């Protein structure tokens, strides 16, 4: 087993991996950019090394600097987390060249899956069901027109190197095709340095369901059930759950076996995710493979009772999978809410800044994977994911009720967080009935808010509390303010007798 692992990431996922390292008695090495010195992952690590400026290209995406830290610290392996370098074959190759184990698939498997068009070709050969379309980049507008006419509108244009919705266009008719193709190409070129775009039939109101796979380096591959990820905004997942309400044992087996074929066709090892689109008749089509640990991996961990990060590390260390497919059992129901620093009242605009008050939920069925602490300033330079709140219950209804209760306990002060969004989703009748598809969230957000209006009684309570806080003074109002700007608050409160009078008032 490795003695020391470097985590080439930040935020909640870096904390998640550090925790796994400590559980396995492995020393954890953190890297951090200039704006992340005070970040939680640095506090939790055994060693921490600065790797440069805030811009990811100067730090978390800088292969040379990260490998230099691996050499200096003597780390035997690197866990890339998700995002940043996690799906970068060049990085995986550089790790291999430097004699450091990359905890993930081989560079060759990433290459096979990294390009969506090449992945489609491999899947065609492996007999995996796919959405009708091209498995090669479009050569011309004329070709796009022909293919679209053959498979029928609406069609979806997608960047071969894509992800996160970049370079993706839904085209309803031939009239829109030309401009959509041009903008998809230029967006893909800008985002990925690769303007290759292909075409697929657009499945109307699909569900997005993915299958978790694990493969060791001795030829054993298993699937760990599915995750329902249909709740998305701008192609970013917002709520994920396991299992999916529409997947029964037979469908789970068929999807799982297809996912295993995909995995084996790519010569894939370690943890991966095979994404499928599911139409209204429950036909499933291969979408793409994500060659990393997913943000939403905890829901699978909860319903299978397995620790995916532990298993990733064991597989990378050369161990065999410690269980067979038959031993994998799905039990209970788990739902994850992605808590972002964004303003639900201002079009979900990112809201970085200082966390002045943080009250975190706990109790039965609640797991919180967080990367923040009170008094910390959320930098504006990275993804605004603060934490993942996961509920795990006997069934879906119980998990929803646990989450609603936990959301009431959860408070993030000083910055805006999207907590109220999850109250709306979890109370929505269609969500509760599991009537989900990828258009669900956009439709829900177009409706007027139906959240219970605060009543006069609550306003009176607020008025009384406001007066009490005014009497008690600034120290009672905010720990964060006092801790960081101590000098300022002393200056503001220059009259000592006034402070003394306040203290007396409270006794």
């Amino acid at each position, binding site marked *: 087993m490795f003695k020391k692992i470097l985590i080439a990431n930040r935020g909640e996922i870096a904390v998640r991996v550090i925790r796994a390292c400590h559980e396995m008695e492995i020393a954890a090495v953190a890297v951090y950019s200039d704006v992340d010195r005070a970040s939680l992952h640095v506090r939790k690590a055994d060693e921490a090394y600065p790797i440069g400026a805030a811009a990811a290209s100067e730090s978390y995406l800088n292969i040379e600097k990260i490998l230099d830290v691996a050499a200096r610290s003597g780390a035997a392996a690197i866990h890339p987390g998700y995002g940043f370098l996690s799906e970068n074959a060049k990085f995986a190759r550089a790790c291999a060249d430097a004699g450091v184990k990359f905890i993930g698939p081989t560079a060759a498997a990433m290459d096979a899956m990294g390009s969506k068009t090449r992945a489609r070709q491999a899947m065609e050969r492996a007999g995996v069901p796919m959405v009708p379309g091209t498995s090669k980049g479009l050569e011309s507008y004329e070709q796009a027109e022909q293919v679209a006419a053959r498979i029928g509108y609406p069609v979806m244009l997608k960047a071969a190197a894509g992800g996160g919705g970049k370079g993706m266009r839904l085209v309803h008719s031939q009239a829109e095709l030309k401009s959509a193709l041009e903008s998809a190409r230029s967006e893909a070129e800008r985002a990925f340095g690769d303007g290759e775009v292909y075409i697929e039939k657009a499945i109307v109101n699909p569900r997005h369901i993915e299958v978790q796979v694990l493969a060791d380096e001795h030829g054993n591959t298993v699937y760990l059930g599915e995750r329902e990820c249909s709740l998305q905004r701008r192609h970013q997942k917002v709520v994920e759950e396991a299992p999916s309400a529409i997947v029964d044992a037979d469908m789970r087996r068929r999807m799982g076996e297809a996912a295993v074929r995909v995995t084996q066709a790519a010569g894939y090892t370690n943890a991966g995710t095979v994404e499928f689109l599911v139409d209204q008749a429950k036909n499933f089509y291969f979408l793409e493979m994500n060659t990393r640990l997913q943000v939403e991996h905890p829901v699978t961990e909860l319903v299978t009772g397995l620790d995916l990060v532990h298993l990733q590390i064991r597989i990378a260390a050369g161990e065999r999978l410690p269980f067979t497919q038959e031993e994998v059992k799905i039990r209970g129901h788990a739902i994850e809410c992605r808590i972002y620093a964004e*303003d639900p009242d*201002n*079009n979900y*605009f*990112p*809201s*970085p*800044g200082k966390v*002045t*008050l943080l*009250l975190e939920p706990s109790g039965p069925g609640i797991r919180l994977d967080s990367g923040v602490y009170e008094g910390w300033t959320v930098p*504006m330079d990275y993804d605004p994911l603060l934490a993942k709140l996961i509920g795990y219950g006997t069934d879906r209804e119980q998990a929803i009720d646990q989450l609603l209760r936990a*959301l*009431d306990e959860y*408070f993030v*002060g*000083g*910055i805006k967080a999207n907590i*109220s969004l999850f*109250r709306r989703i979890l109370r929505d009748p269609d969500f509760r009935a599991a009537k989900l598809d990828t258009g669900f969230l956009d439709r829900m957000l177009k409706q007027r808010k139906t*959240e219970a*209006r*605060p009543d*006069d009684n*609550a*306003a*009176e*309570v*607020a*008025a*009384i*509390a*406001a*007066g*009490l*806080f*005014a*009497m*008690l*003074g*600034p*120290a*009672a*109002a*905010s*720990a*964060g*303010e*006092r801790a960081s700007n101590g000098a300022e608050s002393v*200056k*503001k*409160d220059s009259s000592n007798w006034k402070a003394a009078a306040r203290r007396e*008032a*409270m*006794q």
Partner: protein
Amino acid sequence: MTYEVAIDGLTSTGVRNYRLELSRADGRWLCRLDGHEIEVDAVLARPGVLSLRIGNKAYEVRYERVAGEQYLWVGSARFTAEVRDPRSLRGRVRAVDDSGPRKLTAPMPGKVVRVLASQGAQVEAGAGVMVVEAMKMQNEIKSPKKGVIQRILAAEGTAVNAGDVLAIVE
């Protein structure tokens, strides 16, 4: 103490003003809200969190201060609160003292599209000083206090980050 408390956040009625009398005797709070006596038992659980018993009903109220505004959360409902002390010579006090220069900061990354007040100008509390646009949305940055614009630190067209100081009001 007697306060005038303006509470905003009630969707139906807009701002509501309360007259709040608070005093302490024999280890108890005496509270009158708009003349009605209310039985209040308050414990500061930790900075920013007040455990209140009003009669026998229990509430946890959370305090938050963002960009010069103070918010009180009762359950999942958020209220903006402005507390004035009518006896005060300055006429208004917020929970945090208003004396000395105050910075106006950008609440979000964006671009300054208009500067509404010039250096040296007199401004009332709540008067717009500049407009910051982010993702096609315009946000008026308001003066947190009555005073004189000491400095304007961001010109029209400047890109700003969240927290950047835009102006100082003395």
